[in-house]
């Protein structure tokens, strides 16, 4: 019985030791992940265009996430009296060069050029508008996950009739590779 207990204890110690030695580091959470970013405070309400923070959204293929420098364009200065602002400033100071984690959901066999759509008169909010009251994040277009059908419907002028977009290409090789 004594040995059984000793063996059990040794096993327990072994687990702790193994944990100590081989412990996997938690992925480092960006400090800014603690901040509930609100698009409604940063967009039209203060006269900012999407492309100010999401560089490339008007002329390049991809609309990028803002870098720390983009945030600091405004947040160098104490902007408001809100109680959260000090926490934000301190976390922003701590964060790395690219404070936002973003996973691109566009499949690799699909081509989507943001600038091309902007040049054709499509507004960011036409595809990225959230449901009423919700914020933009979540990879949803108007509350639904993105799908090829959405692209095709607009390209074939079945949707956005009021916007009077030009008909766009619907052959496979236009958007797929």
């Amino acid at each position, binding site marked *: 019985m004594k040995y059984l207990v000793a063996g059990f204890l040794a096993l327990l110690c072994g687990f702790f030791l193994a*944990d100590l030695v081989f412990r996997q580091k938690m992925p480092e959470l960006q400090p800014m992940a603690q901040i509930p970013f609100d698009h409604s405070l940063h967009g039209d309400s203060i006269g900012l265009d999407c492309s100010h923070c999401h560089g490339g959204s008007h002329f390049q293929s991809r609309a990028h996430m803002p870098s720390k420098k983009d945030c600091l364009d405004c947040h160098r200065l104490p902007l408001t009296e809100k109680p959260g602002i000090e926490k934000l400033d301190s976390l922003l100071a701590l964060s790395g060069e690219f404070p936002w984690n973003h996973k691109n959901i566009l499949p690799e066999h699909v081509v989507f050029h943001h600038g*091309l759509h902007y040049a054709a008169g499509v507004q960011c909010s036409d595809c990225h508008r959230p449901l009423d009251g919700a914020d933009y994040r979540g990879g949803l277009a108007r509350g639904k996950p993105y799908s090829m059908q959405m692209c095709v419907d607009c390209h074939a002028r079945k949707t956005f009739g009021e916007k009077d977009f030009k008909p766009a290409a619907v052959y496979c090789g236009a958007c797929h590779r």
Partner: protein
Amino acid sequence: MDRREFIKACSVVLLMQAFAGCRRVTLDTSSSMPSLEDFVNEVKMAASRSKPGFDLVQIPMPSALKQSGASPLNRFGMAIDLDACNGCGKCILACMQENNIPLSSKERRAAGQFMHWIEMRGGTPSMCFHCGDAPCEKVCPTGAATHTPDGLSTMMYKRCTGSRFCGANCPVGARKFNYDDAVKEGLSRRFNSEVPLRSKGVMEKCSLCLQRLQDHKYSHMAQFPGNEWRGTGVETACAGACPKHAIIFGNWLDPASPLVKAAKRKNIYAPAEVAALDPSVVYLRGNR
């Protein structure tokens, strides 16, 4: 062995297992990535086994596609100058790197089967001829093989179910079928992040570097809305890699294109098999 030793041994075994289970890296290293040298060697091997050449027949310069919906401005194509080409095979390697073409397994290599989109035929490179009247596209049951308005015969990999009808109907055998799962078997290497890797059971072939044309076109259209795009300045990976400038990419419908300029000086040939199918890729030989 007495009871005490038995329990000791069990504890030791369990401890070892606990350690082993907490390792960060697995011991499995089977799926390693092939090196660039592997690709170079495979290209050398393929180039040394040049297939017999084509019977070439003279054709007129390709003009606008006859299909409905074809672009009146653009028809992309390529010309291979047989007087300049020395069959070095650099185009094959450049193509593999641009389009993430996988290596072939030992058995397939031994049988002379490669995934290369460019093959040596009679000492000169040959690839898909992008026929305007493509026989491969007519037999695709899923619509994966289609033609773009600007003259490219394209493959939509996600639509392909692997019937291989297109391969059977191609008169020059330009299409390659993924019999193996190259990614799983460690035969694939992602040189170019812009081109997706193909999965098992999918047909592939020369795309005339579709991704380069798409990227250039959409950047142009975003920067200069309303301006015509003629593909000026785009070239395929093989054309860019050719040390003799024997491969010329361009737009058949643009008189300023290097392709048209080169083709005007020389006689234009196509393999007899595809000469009647309005090919976009041609051979040049002999000054006019």
